[in-house]
């Protein structure tokens, strides 16, 4: 069985309920209530988007979003943003340890939040020498797109553990 790869410009989508969308092909074929998902949620944010139906069955995969109409692309990315919630940390307000559990109080692009990390080594990962992904004690995720763009104090707190 071969996967059904298509290009971004072959479809038109209408977002229905935040993370669900209807898809119409230019050939006239129609799908309803599909859920787009990233196949590479960590490394490829706007390529290889798979579309699942209500039973979780894959219908097709969009290779790249680049050749989608800008408006369409925006719609789809908005849809994905709803699903993938990875707040970007913009500042580490404070960090304290109590009995081996670290409490991070952070400022993110979605507001301030406090979360727990049990183990820094296991919960933080650095990519391309600047991007840091964090998973907290509840398996929520956070991202620091570029650690060197944070303020000096945050850097000083975070970098020794990387």
């Amino acid at each position, binding site marked *: 069985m071969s996967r059904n790869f298509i290009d971004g410009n072959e479809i038109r989508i209408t977002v229905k309920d*935040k993370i669900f969308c209807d898809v119409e092909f230019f050939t006239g074929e129609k799908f309803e209530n599909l859920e787009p998902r990233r196949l590479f*949620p960590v490394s490829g944010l706007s390529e290889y988007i798979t579309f699942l139906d209500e039973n979780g069955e894959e219908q097709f995969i969009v290779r790249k979003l680049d050749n989608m109409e800008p408006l369409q692309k925006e719609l789809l990315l908005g849809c994905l943003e709803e699903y993938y919630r990875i707040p970007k940390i913009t500042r580490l307000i404070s960090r304290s340890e*109590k009995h081996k559990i670290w409490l991070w109080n952070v400022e993110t692009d*979605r*507001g301030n939040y406090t979360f727990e990390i049990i183990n820094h080594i*296991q919960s933080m990962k650095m990519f391309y020498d600047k991007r840091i992904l964090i998973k907290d004690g*509840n*398996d929520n995720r956070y991202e620091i797109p570029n650690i060197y763009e944070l303020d000096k104090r945050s850097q000083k707190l975070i970098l020794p553990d990387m």
Partner: protein
Amino acid sequence: MIPKDLLINKPASEKIVAIAEEQFKGKEKPLFAVVGDLAVDSRYGEGAVYVTDNRIVAVGDGFDDGFISLDFTNIAEISVKRMYGNAVLKAKTTGGSTLDLMRFTFAVADMCDAVADFITKVNEGETVENRFAAVEVTFRNLRSFCPKCGRKLASPTSECLNCKGKKKMVSTLYRYIKPYMGKLIFCIFLSIITTGAALVPPYVTSMMVDNIIPNRDKRMLVIIILFLLGVYFAQYAIGALRSYILRVAGDGIIADLKKEIYAKAQYLPMKFYDKTSTGSVINRVNSDTTVLQQFMLRITQEAVVQLFMMIGIIIIMLSMNWRLTLLSLIPVPVVVVCSRFFGKKIGPLYRRIWRRGVAISSILADTIPGIRIVKSFSKEEKTIKKFSYHIDDWMAEDKKVAKVAAIFPAAITFLITCGSVIIWFVGGKMVIDTPDKLSLGVLVSFISYTSMFYTPVNFFANLSDSYQNALASTEKVMDIINAEPEHDFGKGSEMGVMQGRIEFRNVNFSFDRSKKVLNDINFVIEPGDVVGIVGTTGSGKSTLINLLMRFYDDYEGEIFVDGVNIRDIDMSYYRSQIGYVQQEPMMFRDTIFNNIAYSLPGAHPEQVLNAADIANAHGFISRLPDAYDTMLGERGVGLSGGEKQRLSIARAVLKNPGILIFDEATSAVDSETEKLIQDAINRLIRGRTTLMIAHRLSTLRKANKIIVVDKGNIIEFGSPEKLMALKGKYYKLIQIQSMSEQVAAEKAAENFE
């Protein structure tokens, strides 16, 4: 009204409470409530749901009036939709529209699951009291944190193992030193002698310069020389003895440390190993212990010795000339301040180095055992490259440390030298100006003492470097030593021969919050039942067994064996009563005999032969040149999959367990071997409660009960006949498989014609 002691996960904001109070103005009381942590637009914010026995009220900014109320009778379906890093409590009304009741991160997902479960089950006709009890359990689990340290407890009443077993770094380290205290103190005693001896020569110098040489006293010279020789001999002989004893004691410390970490690692829960790389465990046992031991010796030996030396020298210097002594102490505060600064600078660097060391060990632990794969894909070069990359990374980091670690001692030494230059200058002037106050001999020996004095100062200045390094390692070693072991609350409570009645009651489980793996599992297996567990791959079959084996114990709900909660049974007794043949049979680097006898140490050879026979393994073993003495490689290299499988069955047989579990015991073998293994299993299961996971349904002929698992739910349970009559999933699976068997048979027939 809202009761004061409402079951709620955390206090809601005033705004929400106000709206909720408006809703529950009359007599009606909510049973429980969940406060969420996200707003509808996925920013951090607040929302809440209040649940009574017949309706749910969701409060939040996303609703037109700030809230929405839904009667249970209007809810067709309610569930938690887990997304990525967030989830939504969704309800479908009987009218066909869907509503998002609340959005939240995984931090509150468990409680929202409880809400959805509550409403669904109540709608299905279960009593409110029953379901509310289940909700209470979820909330209690959430709240069962240790009041001291805030860690989650295994059960609300249990003691916090973390706090109980927690020892401060110093007291832990002290425990390892204690057995060798006698030796170490003796060593300190010896080194005080050698230190004292080292202080003699400068004193002798001043005698030479001031008395013997000016007086041309040859007799005294000879005496002095012989005396010096004696002192030197004693110093080095005692030094040799000391380093021998010290090394032996040091080896003892490190051996104890390694043994203890390894022992501790054996009792750590599976959860620890799911998350921790083998490399980092190996690193801790091997290199971190060495760093620690060296540090301990430094602290208990050299530090003491250097301290004595420092005090001794200061006393001698003071007795010689107090002015000069004070002068020579000038750089000391600077040195102390510098070394503190240095410690702060280098500490984080050592943590980074540690992380890189782990990366390297992880690659080793990953690729060396996987060398077959590496070779089969011709990935040697790539593996080498990856390894080199990490080594280079480590090197770059170490270079940073090297810079700091090189500059600092040089700077310190320079400061110290400045100190002695001051002495040269001031002392020289004093000898010239007022020779009666300071003689030449005293100045010369004073200068020697000054340079000796700075050895301890230097040592203490550099101690922060090795302290920081040791700290990084200590943390990691402590990680294991202080980690919570598997909970064994029922230690000592054994219950004779197990009958094998197994009951799962409201069991929920997830490896991590992002995905629920088992959902509200309920079933009862009677003693002697042979139960087939079927379901698509990844549906949670092995996980079910993992829970029964108590590999993971942070599930919700309860599991009973013979009516006793398995958490209350002695762990090692409990596991000894269960024969578990795993999906991936695991052998050790040992002989076949020992591998089988692993389950029953000290087994009689005939018992082992018998077990091998029952497992249909005796045949192939006896044909091996070394038969039962055949040495297997690591993880059982040297045997085929089916052979390993049969050895692991033999292992289970030898144990003579009350409950047998087979996880895909015949997945990796041809149909002939499958038959052999199947025969072995059939011989084994007589009279024992048996759980069999199988993809090939033909292996389940003996089963009198079938559990069908689908996406973490038990969707069918009962006798095969009953399930066939049900025409559900099991029926479908049977149809598909017998169809393909039929096709295969037809094909075979065609080929013969």
